[in-house]
């Protein structure tokens, strides 16, 4: 069974974001880049499916500039068999729809039975791509998946989606698209053996022309980015306990409107 995992490289969660001078981008200096955590769940799940079936191929794919190779290498180090890097200046300003088109073209070439993604990337939190990809391919798709089981003959996948207070269970015919929610699994750490082995695995550069796409303009463009306002300082309520509790309740109700 062939599985394609679409991943995105994002700034490390611990990074202090700074706005770029143009006010539309983030300043990339000093950023540590990582594989988006939800995508790591997707990679892990793909590897588990392959291991459970005893055969198959896991292909990691990502769109972005040269630095994205590092993210793909860490997927290879985790155990993916090969990687595809959609790397072309034509995609420099790609929005989710352009990215979905590029991925759909790769999916058509590669013809996997399953595409796994994270539920959303943790940088811009759009979460739009898997649905767009499903639409472009005409494939069934299920999101925020907590459990997954591909049937023995690889014809369908049973997935359980997180909903308020429970799980919603679907059977999807394959090929299909599934996105990973936190809790689906605990991703493995790449081992040294894996890291060394990753250097020898195929990491293919793909240009827009290679997948038959012409340059297009993004439909979504960023007008401005704004930093969050600094958090207002905390307030310590003074006084004896009964009065302080009363004041706390009043403040939560009237000032913070939290209760």
């Amino acid at each position, binding site marked *: 069974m062939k599985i394609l995992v679409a991943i995105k490289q994002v700034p490390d969660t611990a990074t202090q974001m700074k706005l770029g001078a143009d006010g539309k981008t983030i300043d990339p200096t000093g950023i540590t880049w990582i594989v988006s955590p939800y995508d790591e769940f997707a990679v892990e799940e793909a590897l588990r499916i392959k291991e459970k079936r005893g055969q198959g191929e896991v292909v990691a794919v990502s769109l972005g500039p040269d630095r994205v190779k590092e993210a793909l290498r860490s997927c290879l180090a985790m155990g993916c068999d090969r990687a595809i890097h959609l790397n072309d200046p034509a995609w420099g300003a790609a929005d989710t729809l352009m990215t979905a088109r590029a991925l759909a073209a790769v999916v058509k070439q590669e013809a996997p039975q399953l595409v796994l993604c994270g539920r959303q990337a943790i940088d811009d939190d759009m979460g739009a791509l898997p649905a767009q990809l499903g639409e472009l391919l005409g494939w069934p798709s299920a999101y925020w998946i907590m459990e997954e089981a591909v049937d023995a003959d690889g014809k369908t996948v049973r997935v359980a989606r997180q909903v308020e207070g429970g799980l919603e269970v679907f059977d999807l015919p394959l090929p299909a698209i599934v996105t990973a929610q936190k809790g689906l699994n605990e991703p493995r*750490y790449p*081992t*040294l*053996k894996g890291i*060394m082995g990753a250097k020898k695995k195929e990491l293919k550069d793909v240009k827009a022309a290679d997948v038959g796409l012409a340059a297009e303009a993004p439909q979504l463009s960023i007008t401005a980015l704004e930093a969050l306002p600094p958090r207002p300082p905390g307030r310590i309520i003074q006084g004896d306990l009964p009065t302080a509790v009363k004041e706390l309740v009043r403040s939560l109700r009237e000032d913070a409107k939290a209760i």
Partner: protein
Amino acid sequence: MRAFVDKEVTPHVAEWEAAGRIPRSFWKRLGELGFLGLEFPTEFGGAGGDFLASIVLGEEMARCRSGGVAFSVLVHTDMSSPWLTRYGTEAQQRKYLPGIVAGETVCALGITEPGTGSDMAALTTRAVRHGDVYRITGSKTFITNGVYGDLYFLAARTGSGTAQRRHEGISMFLVERGLPGFTVSRKLDKTGMRASDTAELAFQDCPVPAENLLGVEGRGFQQLAAGLQRERTMAAVLALAAASQALEDTVAYLRERHAFGEPLAQRQALRHRIADLATDLEAARALVYHAAMLYAAGEECVKEVSMAKLFATEVANRVAYQAVQMHGGYGYMREFPVEGFARDVRLWTIASGTSEIMREIIARRIFE
């Protein structure tokens, strides 16, 4: 490695420090992830990496803010078990390496004795051949992983040296825990490194199978001396990485703590002190990496390793003193990581060869 330390080590160190040991399950987890066999051959479950991979292990483990956890792990990976691949027979490697790599066999190094430490050639534990066993009698002290360990890389006398060549006649043995006549006489209580267990060991006619002689009989001193360069580089790495973490913790503290109407980080006296310490650490790092590269390349490195061990561990202790000082009263409290760091790092100018011995070695290479 860093993600692993953040997620699975740092959250537990307080518990392990209090318990005075690290749990077996943690050794197995390290084994499962391949961290205990970074340089060992792949046929025994190792990763076939190089010394620089071990340096990364040391640096990242030391950042867990428990010197003892890092110390125990690195004694196993770098200060004992490498002698097995260096001098062990095929059969010895086949027997012990898989367990060592898996974290099932925890290793310790037994050189120091109650009567001698720095002067390794003066050790008196005896190993006398009787048929197919050596009978070992004597005692060892300050043995890390000694209380809960499984396999001891032990130095003992199989012959007496001469007045000129006192270091002749020492041999190395692989001694398994549980042999008759081998007892852990005491678990030692100590200033820092509390998560790593430290033992006093007693041997009374303990029969060690002759096939557990490690390397060549009578050449133990030379074998140990060769391996000490790895151990000392690693000691420098652990001290340095922990000190870097403590300095980061201190910088964060100075940013947060207010006095006289502004963060302490605004005070020039403290800023300059931080600048000096950061500079010292950077210099130490350059020297340690230089020594590590020489060792990894198999080049002559005794002088550079001794310098790196001396300089890095002394710089780390300066960092400790100032990190506590800049934390004020909080630096003296158990809840603050710099307090533990200051206790832990005190060891490093003593163990793995004292600063005085490092200076002796360096001076000898300058004058002789």
